[in-house]
């Protein structure tokens, strides 16, 4: 507690970002330090769990010191500790958890376990101070593609999810095939701006009628097959066209399903969350679709789209306000359901 305001320390380490934040009254970020490992994993073309875990351990205590210093707060003034306990890479999660639990014990603070997706959704509460549930959320990242009906700060329901690859994963794989590098999302988004999104009509996979689930493994194969057949025919691959067409095909499905979920469940707002929510094409397509249906659209600034602890702090705050805390047996749950 500082100046009569509740302070949350939050820790996030579910994938390749080590992050610690200090958040005041849930929505006001005093510090949000993110130690990214992107460069470390780039040479491997993806996140290597063992290496990610090693780096989390190397970085986490220093990141905490920085978060406290930048916020101008002492550990004594912190009211509770929020931490991601799933889903994510188990070895990565447990660094944040072991650290958070030791902090909670040593500083005698309550502990609040946070679902990573709940955190991503909450990033929007930080960005948009007026935003309140209910709304329809699209959570889209390297590990997740979910349509989530959010009915309260701590109440939500998954209406649709991917049956195979996450959208971000499909981006990574296609970027690799096109020789663009890692991570694929921002690279495809960038080069797609110079391409024709209708140069190649890749199959849009809508699954069964009324289903809000996704499948992205087919489009990856589609891109691969297209490239091979073009090469066999001796034609040069137009990378920008392929990237733009791939992105258009993926986003057509995502935007259509999200908007129809909002309309069906009578929501007047759509909220984007997760790493891919920073994608410029997704944002512009969503803007257009929402305008057509008279829906309001919210998304966080890029820094709050990526994995960060501030969003975890916000979600922890609303759990804590609802009287939910965890004890020191809190475990990492890699496949934690929402």
């Amino acid at each position, binding site marked *: 507690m500082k100046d009569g305001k509740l302070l949350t320390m939050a820790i996030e380490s579910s994938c390749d970002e080590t992050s610690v934040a200090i958040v005041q009254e849930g929505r006001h970020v005093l510090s949000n330090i993110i130690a990214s490992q992107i460069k470390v994993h780039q040479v491997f073309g993806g996140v290597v769990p063992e290496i990610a875990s090693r780096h989390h351990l190397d970085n986490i205590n*220093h990141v905490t010191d920085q978060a406290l210093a930048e916020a101008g707060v002492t550990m004594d003034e912190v009211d509770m500790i929020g931490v991601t306990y799933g889903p994510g890479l188990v070895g990565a999660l*447990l*660094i944040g958890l072991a*650290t958070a639990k*030791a902090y909670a014990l*040593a500083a005698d603070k309550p502990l609040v376990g946070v679902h990573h997706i709940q955190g991503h959704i909450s990033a929007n509460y930080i960005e948009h101070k007026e935003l309140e549930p209910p709304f329809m959320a699209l959570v889209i990242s390297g590990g997740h593609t979910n349509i989530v009906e959010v009915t309260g700060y701590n109440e939500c329901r998954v209406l649709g999810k991917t049956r195979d690859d996450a959208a971000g994963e499909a981006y990574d794989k296609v970027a690799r095939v096109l020789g663009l590098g890692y991570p694929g999302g921002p690279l495809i988004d960038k080069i797609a701006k110079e391409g024709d999104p209708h140069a190649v009509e890749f199959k849009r996979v809508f699954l069964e009628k009324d289903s809000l689930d996704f499948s992205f493994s087919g489009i990856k194969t589609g891109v691969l097959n297209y490239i091979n057949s073009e090469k066999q025919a001796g034609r040069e691959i137009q990378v920008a066209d392929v990237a733009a067409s791939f992105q258009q095909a993926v986003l057509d499905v995502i935007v259509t399903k999200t908007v129809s979920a909002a309309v069906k469940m009578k929501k007047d707002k759509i909220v984007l969350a997760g790493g891919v929510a920073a994608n410029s094409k997704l944002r512009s397509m969503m803007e257009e679709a929402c305008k057509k249906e008279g829906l309001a659209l919210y998304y966080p600034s890029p820094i709050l789209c990526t994995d960060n602890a501030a969003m975890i702090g916000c979600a922890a705050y609303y759990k804590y306000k609802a009287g939910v805390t965890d*004890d020191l047996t809190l475990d990492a749950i890699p496949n934690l359901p929402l």
Partner: protein
Amino acid sequence: MYILALETTGAHASVAIIDEEERIFLKKSDGVLNHLQHLMPMTQELLAENNLRLSDITAVAASQGPGSFTGIRIGVSSARALAQVLDVKAIAVPTLKAFAYQAPDYKGLICPVFDARRNQVYAGAYRWENGAIQEVVTGAPYLIEEFLEKVDAAGDQRMFFGDGTKAYADYFQEAQLAPEEIRLQSAASVARLAKDLFSQGKAVSYEELKPNYMRKAEAERKLEEKKNE
């Protein structure tokens, strides 16, 4: 003076506190490989049962490895975080060397052997000489046969410890194994070695408490192999 010691490198986690008079307070988990769940509650219970508070702790020690990578990280990150908040020193305890304290009266070679899979072990050989631990075979990764040859060359009476004696049971049929109750890692011996290190001025800041995996991540090894091809 009280040193808190965490041991999470093997199948069972344990927590110990050692005091000025070298009295040991110990708590062991019955569970297998659920260190993250049990470590802090066990620490809390151990303190409470002995009427101690965290503010009484002078330094926090962790068994730094080798052993299970995940286990090492749970112990080291917990110890670092405790030391950071309590504003006390940390102590990095070499896991293999700590086995010397499992048999402080034994005259021969004390040989901890951990299973590192694919015929490999993390192992070392230690001997008590005039109240000090001598490292006769350096604690390191070895092929199991390579390690046993080194121990043979040291030509001494010897006793084997660690889960490697089970994983490579064929190699230890004739060997003297440590009694079961002292065969595996224990926070009690980690605490004893921690106290020695502390009195030798070898305590460090929480950020200098590092894990000692003794092996690179597999992806790193493969990348290096590729580069060398």
